[in-house]
């Protein structure tokens, strides 16, 4: 009886899955077009899955091993099952027998994997979604066990009718359950959807540069994509789910709700109303249409589940005056994000949360004109005075009145263009700038500054969604920079660093940009800096998001600290897992309230190390961490530490040596 039933079941499930797949594809295609290569993407997909995705999954060894067993077993078992039970190849002699044994092995492997899935689900960490995901281990077992037992019959270990028709019927039922979850559910929205959508998401990812290639490849793509402002009809950001590009919608659908993003998100931890996982699920709800009532994970802190909903053409964020109604998400959810990319870094599915959030912010700012709190004022200042504080642009160099800094306008060329950033208006950051200038002078670097010609890099404007102001600032800066000749740009602001390096390219500005820590490390390595040994307290180092996760620079700052003779006491969350200071993405400007402040949590991380000094490399981090009350550690920029550690005598020695040499040259 199973001989007749199984092919029907398998092909019915496959047919239904095909229909479901078409429906799902139609849902994704509601989005806007996106320039990705279909053929190239599909060809690259296996490598992206096996190398890049696995690299992220393998940060949790338990689940990566489990996934290899379960998913590998399933894929093999599914293919073999179609051959053996669907097409009846199992009954053939020779090859058929081998296929049957292989299927036994694959389903056994999958069964072992599903046992570990079940173990994880017995007492799941809070970041995991419950609901349909709780039945997944049972479904996995039903599929693997069912297939295993019926295959036992095919290879002839047990009788073909398994003893009685009742057993056969029960077994058919179990296999049906397995097939329903694993094949039919894959395209109709069950937990296994992640496999179908995820595979295609990897193939058609909107940032193909993110993935490594055989030749190496940078594997990093973090600059935001530019909006086309010349086209009047192009939407300004994303106001409704169908305004996303189709591969963004596909990306949302790929989410496995593992909650690693949630565990990494500083805003979620601070009790601000953001949970990256819920946000992605809300986008899926918007794409399909309906309400978030079926979501079975942690909510946005302080926002109950079931009150929000939407459809592909409806608004994502309700306008504030529309009778206090709700739409898909509330605006404060989007404005809680610090754009620290911790979620993107952790996501095993390579979903781009920050892109989506900035896309939606763009609509709120450019169309609604509704940037919260001081956002509007900051944008007005950037438009009128080229700096977020509204200071006189002619006073940008006032802090350096005693520094006698060489101006690009006078020099026309220099080896290094020192980009000051808006920290030039901030008294705390002026200390860092002074220190940096001292270090550059000690290393006899040929540098110059733009002075009053410099403008804000546009970072804050862009993260606040004001793409128009960003592009205006960027274009003017590019024009200014094009007038001068220089080899590198060096800056102590990772935000300017990132924007100059990764985001000006799309507007025609290509530069070799260094963060000051990288540049100082190179100066030291080439022997141009003579440093004393550090005699101070124990030190820890805080990785700025825009230097670390955005640009992969984790080593240079540590190398500089090491050069000073400092042994860094690492925090539990450091390197690519560094916790944000709360200062990115305009978050201090939009200032969405939470239960705690993000910098307080970061200073607690510092306290845990017992360090008495925390070294930073970013004006935002300095401001945020220094703003913590009752801090256990002092906050110092790397440039300040290096400036303090300079061996001044040697510099004088060298100077006198040089004069001697020139005198000798004169004599001879």
């Amino acid at each position, binding site marked *: 009886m199973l001989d007749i039933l199984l092919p029907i079941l398998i092909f019915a499930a496959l047919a239904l899955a095909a229909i479901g797949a078409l429906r799902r594809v139609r849902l994704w295609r509601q989005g806007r077009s996106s320039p990705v290569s279909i053929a190239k993407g599909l060809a690259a997909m296996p490598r992206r899955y096996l190398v890049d995705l696995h690299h992220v999954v393998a940060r949790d060894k338990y689940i990566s091993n489990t996934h290899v067993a379960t998913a590998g077993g399933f894929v093999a078992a599914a293919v073999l099952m179609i051959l053996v039970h669907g097409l009846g190849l199992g009954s053939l002699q020779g090859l058929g027998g081998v296929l049957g044994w292989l299927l036994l092995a694959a389903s056994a492997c999958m069964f072992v994997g599903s046992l570990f899935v079940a173990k994880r689900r017995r007492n799941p960490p809070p970041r995991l979604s419950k609901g349909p995901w709780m039945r997944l281990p049972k479904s996995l077992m039903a599929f693997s066990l069912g297939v295993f037992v019926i295959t036992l019959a095919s290879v002839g270990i047990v009788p073909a009718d398994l003893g009685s028709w009742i057993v056969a019927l029960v077994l058919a039922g179990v296999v049906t359950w397995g097939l329903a979850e694993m094949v039919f559910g894959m395209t109709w929205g069950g937990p296994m959807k992640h496999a179908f959508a995820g595979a295609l998401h990897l193939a058609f990812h909107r940032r193909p540069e993110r993935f490594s290639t055989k030749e190496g490849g940078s594997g990093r793509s973090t600059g935001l994509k530019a909006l086309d402002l010349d086209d*009047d009809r192009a939407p*300004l950001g994303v106001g409704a789910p169908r305004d996303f590009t189709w591969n963004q919608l596909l990306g949302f659908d790929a989410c496995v709700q593992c909650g690693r993003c949630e565990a990494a998100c500083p805003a979620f931890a601070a009790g601000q109303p953001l949970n990256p996982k819920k946000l992605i699920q809300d986008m899926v709800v918007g794409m399909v249409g309906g309400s978030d009532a079926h979501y079975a994970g942690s909510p946005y802190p302080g926002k109950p589940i079931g009150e929000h909903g939407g459809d592909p053409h409806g608004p994502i964020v309700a306008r504030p005056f529309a009778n206090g109604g709700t739409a898909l998400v509330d605006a404060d959810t989007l404005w809680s994000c610090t754009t620290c990319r911790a979620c993107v870094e952790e996501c095993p599915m390579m979903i781009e949360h920050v892109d989506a959030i900035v896309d939606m912010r763009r609509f709120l*700012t*450019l*169309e*609604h*004109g*509704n*940037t919260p709190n001081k*956002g*509007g004022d900051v*944008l*007005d200042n950037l*438009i*009128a*005075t080229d700096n977020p504080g*509204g200071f*006189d*642009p002619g006073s940008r160099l006032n802090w350096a009145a005693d520094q006698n800094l060489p101006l690009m306008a006078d020099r026309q060329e220099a080896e290094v263009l020192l980009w000051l950033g808006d920290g030039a208006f901030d008294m705390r950051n002026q200390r860092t700038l002074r220190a940096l200038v001292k270090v550059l002078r000690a290393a006899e670097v040929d540098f110059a500054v733009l002075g009053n010609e410099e403008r804000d890099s546009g970072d804050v404007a862009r993260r606040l969604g*004001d*793409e*128009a*102001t960003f592009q205006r600032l960027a274009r003017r800066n590019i024009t200014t920079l094009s007038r001068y000749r220089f080899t590198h740009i060096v800056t102590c602001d990772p935000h300017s660093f990132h924007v100059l390096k990764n985001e000006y390219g799309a507007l025609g500005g290509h530069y070799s940009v260094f963060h000051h820590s990288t540049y100082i490390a190179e100066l030291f390595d080439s022997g141009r800096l003579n440093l004393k040994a550090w005699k101070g307290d124990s030190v820890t180092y805080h990785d700025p998001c825009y230097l670390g996760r955005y640009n992969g620079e984790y080593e240079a700052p540590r190398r500089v600290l090491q050069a000073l003779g400092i042994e860094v006491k690492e925090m539990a969350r450091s390197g690519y897992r560094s916790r944000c200071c709360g200062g990115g993405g305009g978050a201090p400007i939009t200032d969405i309230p939470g239960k705690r402040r993000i910098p307080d949590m970061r200073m607690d991380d510092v306290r845990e190390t017992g360090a008495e000094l925390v070294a930073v490399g970013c004006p935002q981090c300095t401001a945020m961490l220094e703003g913590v009350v009752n801090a256990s550690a002092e906050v110092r920029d790397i440039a300040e530490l290096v400036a303090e550690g300079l061996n001044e005598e040697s510099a004088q020695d060298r100077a006198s040596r040089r004069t001697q040499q020139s005198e000798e040259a004169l004599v001879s």
Partner: protein
Amino acid sequence: MPHDANSQTSARAQPHGGGQPSVAVLVSMGRHPLTERARRADQDARAVEMALSLGDVQPRLLHAGHFDQDSEAALRGYLGMGFDALELIEQEPGADVIAALCDRLRDAAPQLVLTGARAETDEGSGLLPYLLAEALGWPIVASLASIERIEQGEATLLQALPRGQRRRLRVRLPAVFTVDGSAPAPRQSAFGPARRGVVERIACTSLQDAAFAEWRIQPARKRPKRLKIVKAASARDRFKAAAAKAEGGGGQVLADVTPEQGAEAIFKLLQEEGVLR
């Protein structure tokens, strides 16, 4: 002249022709005080905000002046507050726009004209609303804090007085209201509506302002500020000093006097103060 709430204006109430009143907001080009970049003028933007806060009514924006790149940037700033269109009465540079505005307002017949108290560019004398009200024969109320309600052709207003004081007024419409820094701050101007908004240009003969043409214009010098010496010892005293009403020392209230007597009293005061010699 403002009508006090206690006066008999309410007795003259007439049924108004139903629906929301039509509102026109006069907007001008502003300049940022530090960088002199063109932008929406702060007070005018506050007037637009006040018009938008009236509820369902869709106010109309009106600008009279020369149209160039700078003024377009500034005017689009108002469109970005959520408008589809703005009426622009084209005038040559240096023209006196009062006649043109007056004609246009007579044609459009709005119930309410809102505008900033003083322009940020050109003459900036703050006289325009008064001259306009005079030419139209409408009442004018200066420095509005809010419009509380409009019913039956009568507006109930809160007028801002020094030191945070407010005066409630009821005024027959149509009327001209001016708005200054005590009105609520304007909403953000959004790029999308600003770019889409249409500037409807209306051709109009311009009348050269002969007097203005003869003036020499130079940047204002910062005048020295009189130091305010607060003698208060405690926070409570300081607060009282800040919040106290201006107390007239040797003032004198004249009631039921002939115009001649009034003029004489003013003349005498001006002589005492050394304004007239």
